[in-house]
């Protein structure tokens, strides 16, 4: 293979990567075009970053996976109690309500994820700005504003992470509930344990909803509205 062939192959791979970068970018703006253009000659250096999943998209897919787990656990649980006296403990109506609540929480998480992906809502950028101001001796007022902004971003990030964890915990709890109901159905044991788990599920859902309602009221993470 001659140098010309090698360069041709390199260019073809670069163009393919650039197309992938363009298709993957959420918007066809100047930034996306510049990223795609840089990918053609520099694909070994830039493509892994340009083609890496955006943080928000990754988080959304994580929430979607958890929601799918919850839906499956709910469907299995409803099926397990169908036609048995235990259907009072866990009726299809209860499952629908839980599912709706979970979807609402997941949608909120997606919103937070999308917000974090936008410019101006990045904790790393705000930390960088704060460091820069401190290092070049910015005014106290400017440093205080930058610090407040950074702390707000951190709180938003923490809130989102905590709720993602809570959603995963809920999925695990519902999977336990499904197992309990299956056990009660096939082993003829009491559904008392399952009843307690259903109570726990509602308590956790209320906890999640309360956290988001506070955020919706304009005081996210204890930060007063402007």
């Amino acid at each position, binding site marked *: 293979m001659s140098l010309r062939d090698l360069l041709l192959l390199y260019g073809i791979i670069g163009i393919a990567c650039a197309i992938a970068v363009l298709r993957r970018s959420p918007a066809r703006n100047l930034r996306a075009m510049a990223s795609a253009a840089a990918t053609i000659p520099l694909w*070994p250096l*830039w493509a892994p*970053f340009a083609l890496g999943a955006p943080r928000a998209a990754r988080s959304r897919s994580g929430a979607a996976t958890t929601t799918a787990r919850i839906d499956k656990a709910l469907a299995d649980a409803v099926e397990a109690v169908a036609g048995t006296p235990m259907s009072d403990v866990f009726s299809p109506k209860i499952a629908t309500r839980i599912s709706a609540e979970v979807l609402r929480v997941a949608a909120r998480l997606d919103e937070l994820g999308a917000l974090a992906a936008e410019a101006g809502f990045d904790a790393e950028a705000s930390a960088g700005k704060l460091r820069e101001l401190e290092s070049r001796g910015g005014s106290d007022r400017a440093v205080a504003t930058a610090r407040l902004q950074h702390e707000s971003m951190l709180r938003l990030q923490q809130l989102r992470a905590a709720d993602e964890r809570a959603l995963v915990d809920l999925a695990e709890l519902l999977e336990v509930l499904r197992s309990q109901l299956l056990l009660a159905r096939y082993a003829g044991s009491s559904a008392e344990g399952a009843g307690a788990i259903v109570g726990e599920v509602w308590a956790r859902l209320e906890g999640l909803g309360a956290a988001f309602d506070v955020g919706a009221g304009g005081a996210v993470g204890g930060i007063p509205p402007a």
Partner: protein
Amino acid sequence: MITLFNRLLRSPAEVAKDCRADKGVAPIAANAIAAIVVGTLFFGGAVGSWQGGRQIAFAAIKLTLVGLGTLVVCVPAFHAITAVFGRPWALRPAISIMLIAGARFSLILLAATPVLWLAINLGAPYHLVKLLAALAYALGGLAALGLLLRSLGKGRDQLATVTVFVGVFLLVGGQAAWVLRPYIGDPRHGTTPFFTNEREGGVAYQLYVSARQLVAPTGPAPGSQTTAPSSVDEARSP
């Protein structure tokens, strides 16, 4: 971008830590590439200004190509070498570490640019320009090496990793620079071509030829041309 430059020069360990953790590496990589392009463009322009004219643009473009081309070739090698020596990093951290090391190197070149340009403006001879450029490269290389060592951490086989990688990097970088020479230009030629017309083989071969000539000087060395030498030593040396 300026924030990253500050961090690279003042707290490189912190940037390296972010890269290893794959934390916010996309903007770091973008800014590092920009730093490499800007640093090598300006330094190349200053080197080419010794001859002036279109050699300024030629040298600027060629030094940028050498810098980026060397990184493109060496990034997979770095990824593989670190994995072999017990650091199985993901691709993004490995690339970002290479890029920030390259950016630090380029920032040193950028800092050296006014000095070099001033020397040329004051009528520095070819040899002095060559030495100043080499010195700037050496300083930049040391700065990048320090960052690389910090990035690797104090784990096992740190020295072996760096030694093997530096060997590969010097070979690739040397060959890339050799292929794209000349940079300073030859005042005996009316116009300096973008690529040299001399056919002298690769840099490794030339090193072998020189070593052989030193050990046993027997007439013209194999592969050497009897054409005029590429340097301008005679032209401007006293």
